[in-house]
Each structure stands twice: as C-alpha cells, then as structure tokens.
C-alpha cells in the first residue's frame, strides 16, 4: 500500500506542478504594462465605493453545516458498505436506524424552513 500512496503523493505534486509551470511560461510570454485603470478592482465599471466588505447571509453557514453532518454520516457508512457482503440483516437494520435518525434531523430542518434559499 505504501507504493500506491507514494504514487498518489507524486501525482498530487505533479498535478500542481504542471499548471504552475504553464502559468509561469505564460507570465513570461505576455506583455507587462500595469496601469492604474487596469489594476483597479472591477465593479461594473465604476470606482469602488466604501471598503470592501460583503453582506454574508446566514443561509450559507446553515448549508455548510448540514453538509458537514451528512459528510460525517457517509464517512461512517463507508466501512459498513465495504463489509456489507459479510454482514447479517440485523446489521442492515442498525444502519437503517442510523440513517433514519439523521433523516429526522433533515425533516426538522425542512419544517423550520432552514432549507429554503433565504
């Protein structure tokens, strides 16, 4: 398994390396004429008014949190799925219980209207 992980590590480095080299080459090839108008931040063609801060809706955080809960849930389910072929029907019912508890949470979120986009 170490060889496989070594290959993955090498591949990750190379897959970050090649775009980096390409961007460096393109940086060398292109013209460099910085001008104040070109470098200013784009805002529909007008100058930036006020400081750059963003009105952040709480809805993003709720989606990210529900995603986190489902992510952890599927992480628990993957070893169960790998061992599925040698498990009994009672093990399947344990998993069903696990999923139903979490689906109850989603139902609660649905009723409270937390899943609507604003």
């Amino acid at each position: 398994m170490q060889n496989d992980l070594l290959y993955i590590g090498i591949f990750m480095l190379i897959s970050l390396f090649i775009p980096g080299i390409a961007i460096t080459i393109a940086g060398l090839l292109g013209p460099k004429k910085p001008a104040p108008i070109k470098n200013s931040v784009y805002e529909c063609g007008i100058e930036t008014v006020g400081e750059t801060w963003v009105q952040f809706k709480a809805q993003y955080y709720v989606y990210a949190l529900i995603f986190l809960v489902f992510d952890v849930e599927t992480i628990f389910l993957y070893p169960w799925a790998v061992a599925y072929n040698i498990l009994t029907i009672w093990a399947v019912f344990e998993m069903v219980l696990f999923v139903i508890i979490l689906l109850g949470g989603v139902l609660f979120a649905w009723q409270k209207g937390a899943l609507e986009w604003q």
Partner: protein
Amino acid sequence: MNSFWADPIGFVILWFISLLQGWGLPGDLVLLISYVVGALLLATGSLLLVIFLIWVERKIGGRVQDRLGPNRVGPYGLIQPIADMLKIFTKEFITPDGADKLVYNLAPILSVGSVIMIWAVVPFAINLYGSNLNVGVLYIVAVGGLGELGIILAGWGSNNKFALLGAFRAVAQLLSYEVPMVASLLIPVMLAGSMNLNEIVRAQTVPFIVMAPIAALIFFISSIAENGRAPFDLLEAESEIVAGFNVEYSGLKFGFFFVGDFLHAFTLALLFAVIFLGGWNGPAADSIPILGFVYLMIKTTIVYFLGLLVRFSLPRFRIDQMMALNWKVLVPLSLATLMLTAIFDKLAPAGNLLVQVIVLVLVNLIIWLLLQEFLARAFRDKPQRRAVLHSRPQADAAEDAPAQPQTDAMQS
C-alpha cells in the same frame, strides 16, 4: 501476454523498467523514476486531451444549436483550440490592486490540479492504472473538496466583493450537491464490497447501472451540478453576478479555470463509465488489455456526449430551485435508495446472481414510481400561475373611451 499488439502500453512500461534496471540503478530508485515518469505522462496526457475536448464541445454545441461551430481554422476547425491556446498564452496577467499574491495565484493551480488528481486512481485496463489505492472512491471525493477550496481562494484573493459573493454561491452549490454524490456512490461500494476502483470494475459481471439505476441517475445529475455545467451553471452565466468568482483573472489563469471545467466534465464521465457501466469490461478484455482501454473510452464518450446534450438543451435553474432539488429530492432519494437496496439485497437468496439482479431492478422500479407519485403530489398543491392582463387605461382623455379588458388565450 507480452506481445506488443495485445498490450502496447504495458509492453512499453516493462521495457522502460528493464532499461532502468539494466543501467544498474537500485530497485527503489527504479520504482521512483518509473512512478514520476508515469505520473508526468498521465497528467500531461489529460491536459492535452482537453485541447481536443474544447473542439468537440464547440462543434457539437454548434450542431445542437443549428449552426456549424468552428470551421475556419484548419479542416473542420480542428486547429481552433490550438489557436485559442496560443492567444491565451500571450495575454497579459492583470492582477487587481490589493490582491493577496499567493492566494490569488494558487487558486487556478489548485482548481485544475484537483481535477487532474482524479486520474491517478482510474483503471484504464486490467493492468493499466496509476495507483491501486484501496480507498479510491473516497480519494475522488477528497480531491473534490480541494477544488472547492480553490474556488474560495479565487473569490477571496481577488479583493473584489462580487468575486467573493460569486465564490460563496459556487461553494454553496458544490457543497450541497456533494451529499447526494457521496451517498449514491455508497451503493456500488456496497454491491462490490470494496472502495478500490479496480475491484469495482471486476465485480461488475452485471453493470451496476442495471443493478442500481437510481443511484446512477443521482450520480449523473449531481456530477453535472458539481461540475457547474448547464442546467446548473448559474454561477458563470453572463446575466448573473458578473462572471462569478473568476472575474479578476485574465490570460492563462482564467484559461485554467476553463480547462478545469472541461476536464472535469470528461473525468466525471470517465468515473461514471468505470463505476456504473463496467469500466474496461467487455468481450476479451481480460486477455487483450488494449481492448479494455478501447471499451472504456467508448463508454466514456457515450456518457460525455449525453452530458453535452443535457448541457445544450436544458434551460438554467434558479438557485432556489437548485437547492430545493438537492435537499428536498436528491438527498432523501439517495438515502432511501441506499436503505431499500441494502435491505432487499440481504433478503434476496444469496449466491444467485439473476435473482439478485431482478430483485434490485424491482426495488428501483418501485422507488421510481413512488418518486413520481410524490413529485406529482407536491406539484399538484401549487397554484398554477395565471397570466391575466388587467384593463389598460388609455393614455389620453380616457373618460369617455370604454376600458378594454384584455382577456386572451393566456388565461387558463
């Protein structure tokens, strides 16, 4: 099977390794060098493939929309992507004021890199794969997360309110659709008994699209949404938030976001073919590895073409429709499919493949019918919109002119 024609790539690999050993290098170094060369070839190959994919996409898009597509540069426009590449390589990099240099430059690299990393675990033939990782399926999900991080870096590193807002919406969409994707991938893992992509291909004596069609459908839909293509391309539409999170990028950096997008589409088609269509399985693929590669490419092309048709035919979703589709339909559906498939697969008599396939197909059919019923009921309650034109007052001296109530065929 060492004949060159049956297995050209394996033959070349063995020749290369024996060449290195003939030079007297120690075994570990031979392994390392062969890994580096292999990784370089695979990564570069996938990037070069994108050039061809750009042409395919524009040509097919043109034909679907009843026009020709690029046909000026070279025969059938084949040189067009190369011309585009040369142009984009020589454009100036305009960095906005106040952008965080490291973060701003890292974002496109991370975005493209995360897509190329998927190619390391895909099995192309019976003995042609990058890495035989025993957690291949989860590795694919993990590098998807790295791509999302790249989008956040792009949005924040641009020092632009609109880029940041676009990045948030993009990440919200990607996070949401990752849940049904990961949940639907549980079913092939369950049926094959392993997360190793090689094992999943080997376990498909009957392709998993037959045994778990709903899981395949959910994976297909959520992979289109993960990719950010139509009908889920709200984030890069021209009428929306000014091109989204990559508004401050120019030249090749912007080009790389595009390259990542196109390569991701092909890579997801490749994964669908590996996981649900049986990968390199086919007649005589066991003994002649190059045939397995050919089968895989044919299956991938079919799925990719299907994705292109979906892209050029369907109108765009609004963001609240997208989120409602995900959290109210796809997530409960994928979990329900998982539970029912698990229960009925255990209840079916073991050892008999035909009975297992029939039971699973029936289960999926029942779930599909229930879904149709549920969706019909959900839409029946919504009041139909009625388009009624009210009486329009005349602009000048209207007291004596009678008002004209305009009822027309739109009232239904």
